[in-house]
């Protein structure tokens, strides 16, 4: 398959995502291994430092493992609004049809 982004860019942004989310190498490797990744933990670590190239498939498995772990992190608390109005409610209220709901 053809790449949409260079391998090095994928590697760099994957390493950045792991760091930004505060994921441990152990947890990343466990998920990666669980979804059919074949490199060992040392190889993954070396890969993230740019010292060990993974195949495109292994790199995508690693990417998917990282994204799953990020998706599973608890969301930050959000601030509530004063009302629960939706766009549709507002449109109905002002009698306009110019806005998509």
């Amino acid at each position: 398959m053809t790449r949409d982004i260079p391998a090095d860019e994928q590697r760099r942004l994957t390493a950045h995502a792991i760091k930004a989310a505060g994921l441990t190498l152990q947890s990343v490797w466990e998920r990666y291994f669980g979804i059919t990744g074949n490199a060992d933990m040392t190889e993954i670590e070396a890969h993230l430092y740019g010292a060990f190239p993974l195949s495109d498939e292994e790199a995508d498995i690693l990417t998917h493992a990282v994204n799953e772990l990020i998706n599973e992190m608890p969301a930050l608390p959000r601030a509530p609004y004063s009302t629960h109005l939706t766009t549709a409610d507002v449109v109905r209220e002002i009698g306009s049809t110019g806005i998509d709901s």
Partner: protein
Amino acid sequence: MNTREDRESAPGVPSPAEGGVDAAERADGSDGSGGTDGLARRLGELARSLHDESDLDTRLVDVVQTALQLIPEASDASISLVKGRRRVEPRAASGALPGVIDDIQSEIGQGPCLDAAFRQRLVRVADMGRDSRWPIFARRAWDAGARSMLCFQLFVEGDTMGALNLYAGVAGAFGQEAEQTGALVATHAAIALSDAKEVRGLNDALVNRDLIGQAKGILMERYKISSHQAFVLLSSASSSTNTRLTDVAASFVHTGDLATKRPPRG
């Protein structure tokens, strides 16, 4: 954090020595070495039983029972699992009190367990009636009958953590020796539990690998594509439906259909 010394020297607070532990065992006070023979033997027994026992809940009960035997000041003990940084679940509780305390912490999102979870290895509550760190929790916990508490961090993994909790019905129940013994029990328990988690995690990983391998094989055969292309198909189905890859593979192997779109919301 308020110091323990403040509380224990306060008038009207019972001295920890009134607990019921053999005075000889705490005679030197510094490291509890007066009772180390019995302590070492019990911890050895605990380590062996944790090693031999494969069932997690049985192991947790062993930890809690050992803590109660070694720390007579404690009237109740439990292990709490904190999930998602907020939900506190009691495990292996020795009575009803730990469950009540965990429910309060889950409900109001504050308390010693949650602090032991993510900030400190040991959280002491010498006198629940005078604790200003978690005012709402402290008032309700006091009413429920928890007058002093010790929480030891057992492990932190991702957004899940475990803590060993000791409870007493009187303020100022736990002295230095109780803290040291509790820390020893917690350390033994932490090691045993991390072994158990690792083994279980790897078993899960092997089952998942097999399942995803089957799904990839079916896709490769069906569409005459490479292993990498098959993975990309599964991966995009997983991302677009916000479903774990393992679950996507399981449902695909089971039904033969690859869900690629989230069902439209009504």
